Structures are given as structure tokens and as C-alpha cells.
């Protein structure tokens, strides 16, 4: 089973949100749970990135690539960037993988590689 990360579509106006929010940012619809989950596309464009060297203690790597990607449907996401020489504007493709392990918990998120 492939894992997905979801955006949330307002049932009233159709606006997509990522991450989840309780009230629609577009139309202000405030009935509870009036959003449909929509899997995020995996391909997009790298908007900006950094190599982080001062890492939280649970990361056992010397540096970590992080970036913001604009996905095909216009939604933006923060994710890990596993690209040797990233450039602004490059096409990337994401997979949902374990991005952080703290104690006995594993967290899944989007890891982007060169498309």
C-alpha cells in the first residue's frame, strides 16, 4: 500500500489546504469536518532549499536537506530534499518515507529527489 499525504478540500468552495486547518481560509466555512482529503501529487518544482548542519539531536546524519516544493496542483509543501546539487526551479519528485524517528515513534513525510 502506498502511503499518501493529504491536502484538504473545502466542501463548500473547493479550496485546497495543506496542512489541515479547521476553518476554510478562502470562504470561512466553519462547519466541523467539512473537508475532503485529497492525496497530494508527488511531482513539483523546488522553490527554495537549505542544507541544515545544526540538526536536532535525533538526526544521526551530518547534514539534512530541507526545502519548499510547489506541487503540480499549486499546493506547496515543506519536505526533505535528497538531491546532491539542488537548484531553485529544478523538477523534483517525492515519496512518502520515514523522515524522523524519535524514541519508538517513526514519522512519515515527503522526501524529494531529482525528477
Amino acid at each position, binding site marked *: 500500500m502506498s502511503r499518501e499525504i493529504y491536502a484538504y478540500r473545502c466542501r463548500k468552495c473547493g479550496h485546497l489546504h*495543506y*496542512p489541515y486547518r479547521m476553518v476554510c481560509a478562502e470562504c470561512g466555512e466553519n462547519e466541523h469536518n467539512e473537508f475532503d482529503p485529497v492525496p497530494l501529487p508527488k511531482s513539483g518544482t523546488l*522553490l*527554495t*532549499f*537549505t*542544507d*541544515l*548542519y*545544526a*540538526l*536536532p*539531536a535525533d*538526526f544521526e546524519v551530518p547534514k*539534512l536537506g*530541507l*526545502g*519548499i516544493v510547489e506541487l503540480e496542483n499549486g499546493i*506547496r*509543501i*515543506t*519536505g*526533505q530534499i535528497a538531491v546532491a546539487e539542488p537548484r*531553485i526551479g529544478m523538477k523534483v519528485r517525492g515519496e512518502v518515507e520515514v*523522515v*524522523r524517528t524519535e524514541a519508538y515513534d517513526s*514519522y512519515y*513525510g515527503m522526501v524529494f529527489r531529482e525528477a
Partner: protein
Amino acid sequence: MRDVYAVGIGITSFGRLEYPLSEIAAYPVMMALRDSGLREVDQLYVANMGSGRVNHQTGLASAVVDTLSLTPAGAEVIENGPASGASALKQGFFAVASGVHDVVAVTGAERMREVNNLEATEFVATLTHPIAESIYGVTLPSLAGMFTRAYMEKYGVTSRHLAMVAVKNQNNALLNEFAHLHQEISIEGILDSPESMTNNPFVADPLRFFDCCPVSDGGACVILASREVAEKTGRPLVRLAGVGQATDTHCVHEREEPTDLLAVRRAAKAAFQMAGVGPSDVDVAELHDAFTILEIVESEEAGFFKKGEGHLALERGETQRDGRLPINVSGGLKGRGHPVGATGIAQAHEIVLELRGEAGERQVEDPKVGFTCNFGGFGNNVVCLVFRREN
């Protein structure tokens, strides 16, 4: 609304302090009371972000009001991340302006060196979005690094411009006896020399070690009061004339324009509007340079320079201590240090000192209007203040 005046100020040394957090918060109140000649307050606000997590102490305001023997005055902690200080001043402002209280002490304190630098960075990273940012290892330096790269690409800001901010502010801090860093640096030393590879490594590429503020302990206090009280103190009349606040999306990636800091623009505009002055009237400013890029961008968003031209004003020396608009003469967060809860109040402390003409060696020439920008989260909650000297 009544007019509100800053009648007393006090500050601790910033850096590593070996006394308890409650005393770091209380000591500046003692200094500020002495400065104003007042003995009692109606209300105490304590700006703090990390007491529960870093220092394992909650109910900080109750501890501070008691150790100062100011009971039964009201006392609360105000938390708004790294903008807690200016948020607490905002609360103090409305308490006096409303007529409910005549004298409010607003103190801010943090004791972050209780843990090591990485733990302190992780503590501040709890500000980020839990499921859309934090799980990836996102910290404030990494958000600043991503922001800086986009800014460089769009506006032509270079590592040299960033280093110019670091050099200006650390060298300003040499004249501030309370500053955390008393270390003279040069562009040559941190960017051009062979040693710069080791003394100024990348933290979050393109941001290097000297682009980031230090992790500090420290406290600062400003006492706010009505005009009637302010006149009785006999101190120079400095009015807190404008308070503006604005919020933005929690996730940085949701901002429509990745190189905008809309909350700064909106908070500054609101503060100027209330104060009845504009950016061109400002004589001295303290901006939130937790990362060097932020001083440049805030100077644009506040309206001092056109968007994308802050680094050019920096190049021309306009933001130097003797320039057209001195920015961060105290050393800023970069040089003075950044005890998160105290920073917004330390900024106000510096502006009051400058407007009174009591800033000693770092006094700028006859300022009448001062501005502060206190930046919470990565720009998701910003509070700006405008101070005016009246006599």
C-alpha cells in the same frame, strides 16, 4: 484611550547568567522602579517563552511578583514565542490606555543557557508546525536559510551583505556593556580569510554561524504609566505612541510570496498609524535580527527602504550608528543576544534610552521617534512599537 508613557527601564547583562530565572525577570523591575522613582505597580506582566520546558518552572509571574514584594498586584506570563516581549508591552499598553491601571511593570526574561545550544534550538523549533514542518527536522535556522536563499535569488542579496549586518551589529555591541557578544569581527575575518572556513561554518546554507544570533540568558523591563504618573517622575517624557500586531500562516510554505514578511509590513503599518507618524519620521530603530537577513528584510517591510533595496541602503552605510537611520545600535539580537522572552523589551529599553539621550557612547543624534520590530515564529506573529519623545 489615555496616553501611555515609558517611565522606567532596567536590564540585566545578556549572556550566561548564574542566577535563577525568577531573579533574571525580577532584577530589571528593581532597576526600572529605581529609574522611575516609583515603589509600587498595579500589574506585572512577565514575557517568557521557555520557563516550563527549559527551566521546569511554571507560574513564573507569581514567583516574580512575590520575590519583588509587589503582592497583591496582578501578575501574568505573556507568551508569544520570540515576540513575547513586545506582546507583553502591548498588554501593558492597553492596561494603562484603558484607564484600568496607572502603573504596569512589563518585564521579560529567559534562561536558555541552562541547556546546550542544540537543545535550545530544538526548544525554539517547537514553534514550527508539528506535522507539516517539525517532523522533517525543520528549525528556525533552517526556515531562515530557505528564506535567505529565495531572497538572494530574487533580489541579489549576497553573503557579503549578510556579513555586513553581522559586523555592524557586533561592533555596535562593543559599546553596549550589557551585550552578550563583545567580539570585534570583520568581513575579512568571517568571509574572506582562510580561517573563515572554520570560524564561520554553514549552519543552514547559505546562513553561516555569524549570521545567527547567540543563545542568551537575560532580562529587561519597561514600566508603563499614565501621563499623570509620568509627569510626577520628572524623567524625560517618552510616549509609547503606537502598537501594531499582525499574524501570518503558521507554515512558512503557505505564504503566497515566499520572500514577503507580510506580518511585519502589517504590524509596522498599524503601529505607525496609531502613532500618527510614518517610516520617514523614524530616527532610530531596533529590528529583530535573529538572522542577519531579517534586519535587511524588516527594514524594507517596515517601510524604511523599498522592497528589495534594504541591502543597498546597508551598502551605503545608511543603517550605521552615524547613518541616516541607525538600526540596532544596541547590537541587535546578533550582538546584544536573544533571550527570546526578553528581546522585545530589550529593544524597547534601547529605544527609550536613545530617546532620553541617555545612551552614552552609542547615543544617536537627537532622536525624536523610535521604532521596534519583534518577530515571533518565522514571521507568523509580529509586534511593532513606535515611541515618541515629547519634551
